[in-house]
């Protein structure tokens, strides 16, 4: 029995409606996800961008005898509550370092107090009515103004919000990531090469494979405990150091690198291996000269993504002591250091409004670094992608 087009399209209508419905639902899901992302970015930018600006006070500094012992004497009395305490405190130090300063005076833009800064940005602050009026007057006179906050990018953490910066955390992150990469990349790649190219397929290698996959799913804080127990307590690696943190994060990154490397190796067609074996390559030559170069973009992408993941990690670092007040920019791998997410975590715990802003600012810096790392991974992949 045959059907006319009319009958068939009657039936088809329902099917078309169903697929249209499904399409709208999935588009809705995507839209919702996009909306949340947008909201998140907007909120972060809204809260964080002001952190890149800072109130400065144009101040006359008199390097007098009195100032050397009582720094507050160096500036006008009415400016003392407005200027950052850190700036005032550093005056005697500057005088000690440079004796020629004694008896001179200069006009300089000094960091304003965090409260003044917050007041100018219209945020919650603890200034009294009179102080606010005084600040307003100075703004009118051009003596107080908001400008680019270079301190945020050139200083380490501080207890006073206006002089707190993210540099120590950035340097700490770089050093930690160097350790992580130096450990996890060679070990991870060689493990994957062994499992994929050399190992026989037996119970033992299958068990290793399952364990590696499970390792990737372990809560990261457990890696921190392992790092504390093994690296710090057993091997005596200095606590809070980029070395301890980097080694701990290397454990966490290892399965990611192994899994992505194996996938990259598997994507190299067997015909290339056969060609290499056919001309008399040993197994290692096949891997080194033919398989690895082809798998490299995939391996690098996986490693960078693993590294980006490690870079955003805080939990294991809490355990190895990297979440702490670290005001100094680290100079060696064994000195105490902090990393960006840990710095953000520390700032998030501060009650002052100025630190809320710093928190958001820190997140923006971290996001920028992560996005550029991912972009780098994509570029790398595009550049080295080869046809075969």
């Amino acid at each position: 029995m045959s059907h006319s087009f009319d009958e068939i399209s009657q039936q088809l209508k329902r099917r078309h409606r169903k697929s249209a419905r499904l399409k709208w639902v999935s588009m809705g899901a995507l839209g919702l996800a996009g909306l949340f992302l947008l909201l998140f970015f907007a909120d972060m930018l809204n809260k964080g961008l002001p952190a890149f600006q800072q109130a400065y006070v144009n101040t006359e500094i008199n390097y007098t005898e009195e100032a050397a012992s009582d720094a507050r004497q160096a500036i006008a009395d009415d400016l003392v509550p407005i200027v950052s305490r850190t700036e005032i405190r550093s005056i005697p130090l500057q005088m000690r370092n440079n004796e020629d300063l004694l008896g001179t005076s200069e006009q300089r833009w000094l960091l304003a107090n965090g409260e003044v800064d917050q007041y100018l940005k219209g945020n919650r602050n603890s200034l009294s009515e009179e102080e606010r009026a005084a600040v307003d007057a100075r703004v009118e006179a051009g003596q107080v103004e908001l400008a680019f906050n270079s301190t945020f990018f050139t200083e380490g953490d501080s207890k006073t919000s206006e002089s707190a910066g993210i540099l120590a955390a950035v340097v700490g992150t770089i050093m930690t990531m160097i350790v992580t990469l130096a450990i996890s990349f060679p070990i991870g790649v060689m493990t994957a090469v062994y499992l994929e190219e050399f190992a026989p397929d037996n119970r033992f290698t299958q068990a290793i494979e399952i364990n590696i996959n499970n390792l990737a799913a372990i809560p990261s804080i457990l890696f921190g405990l392992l790092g504390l127990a093994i690296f710090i307590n057993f091997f005596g690696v200095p606590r809070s150091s980029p070395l301890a943190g980097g080694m701990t994060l290397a454990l966490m990154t290892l399965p990611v690198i192994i899994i992505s490397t194996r996938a990259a190796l598997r994507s190299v067609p067997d015909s290339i291996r056969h060609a290499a074996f056919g001309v008399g390559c040993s197994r290692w030559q096949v891997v080194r000269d033919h398989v690895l170069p082809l798998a490299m973009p995939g391996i690098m992408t996986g490693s960078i993504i693993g590294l980006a993941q490690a870079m955003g990690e805080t939990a294991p670092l809490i355990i190895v002591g990297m979440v702490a007040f670290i005001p100094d920019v680290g100079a060696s791998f064994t000195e105490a250091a902090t990393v960006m997410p840990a710095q953000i975590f520390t700032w998030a715990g501060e009650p002052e409004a100025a630190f809320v802003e710093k928190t958001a600012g820190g997140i923006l810096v971290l996001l920028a670094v992560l996005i550029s790392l991912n972009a780098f991974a994509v570029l790398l992949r595009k550049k080295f992608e080869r046809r075969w």
Partner: protein
Amino acid sequence: MNSQAPVMTEQETPSVGQPYTRNEQACHDLSIRVRDLNLWYSKNQALKNLSIDLFQKNVTALIGPSGCGKSTFLRCLNRMNDLIPSVRTEGLVEMDGLDINAQKMDEIALRRRVGMVFQKPNPFPKSIFENIAYAPRMHDMVSRKVDQDELVERALRDAGLWNEVKDKLQEPGTSLSGGQQQRLCIARAIAVQPDVILMDEPTSALDPISTATIEDLMDKLKEQFTIVTVTHNMQQAARVADYTAFFHLGEIIEYNDTKVMFSTPAKKKTEDYISGRYG
């Protein structure tokens, strides 16, 4: 002629499992001697009691329907089957009086003397020059840059590719056409100066013109090399091969001079196959 190899006269009917040679005049030096070769993929026996003599500076074609074991047999000759963990072989494959499956035989040394060309052209994703120069350099066959250039040119000339690629040696091998890629693979194989070249359906992925070029090439190369080729194309076997072995279900049904085989097949199965009744 190798005295060990039994001689079979024209009148004798070839039988399964027997080593064969052709008559006295056409007889050539032995290259590879195979006796009672059995091969299993896990529990499936793919080759059954194969015995065959392959002759130097000749083209031997292996024909037969799909899954008859001809490619598997070909890969036994340079131990490419070692790469498949489930494969188990028994029996003798002898070259220069040495068992190639013996413990002390290094498969790298073997593959240097027994080169291979695959079904699908598989040049390395490197430059044309590197494709040829890589293996000789790896085997320490060339020490100086000049030697290397010379060797690359000779290999490409022998493979009939030189005139087409001499101006673009630094371009990737994969930029060539399919037929050129396959000749590049042949050049790559002959660059290490092997004794034997195995070809696993070398023209099945190529157009008729490229196929003809490769067939001409095989005819020329047999002056220097022993060629064993697997083919699905019976006309090709008739055109290029001096000897032809007909495989069926893991056995050699018939092995004979190609002309004799195609004019007066000794076995009913062979006749059915070459006349196109099945396969």
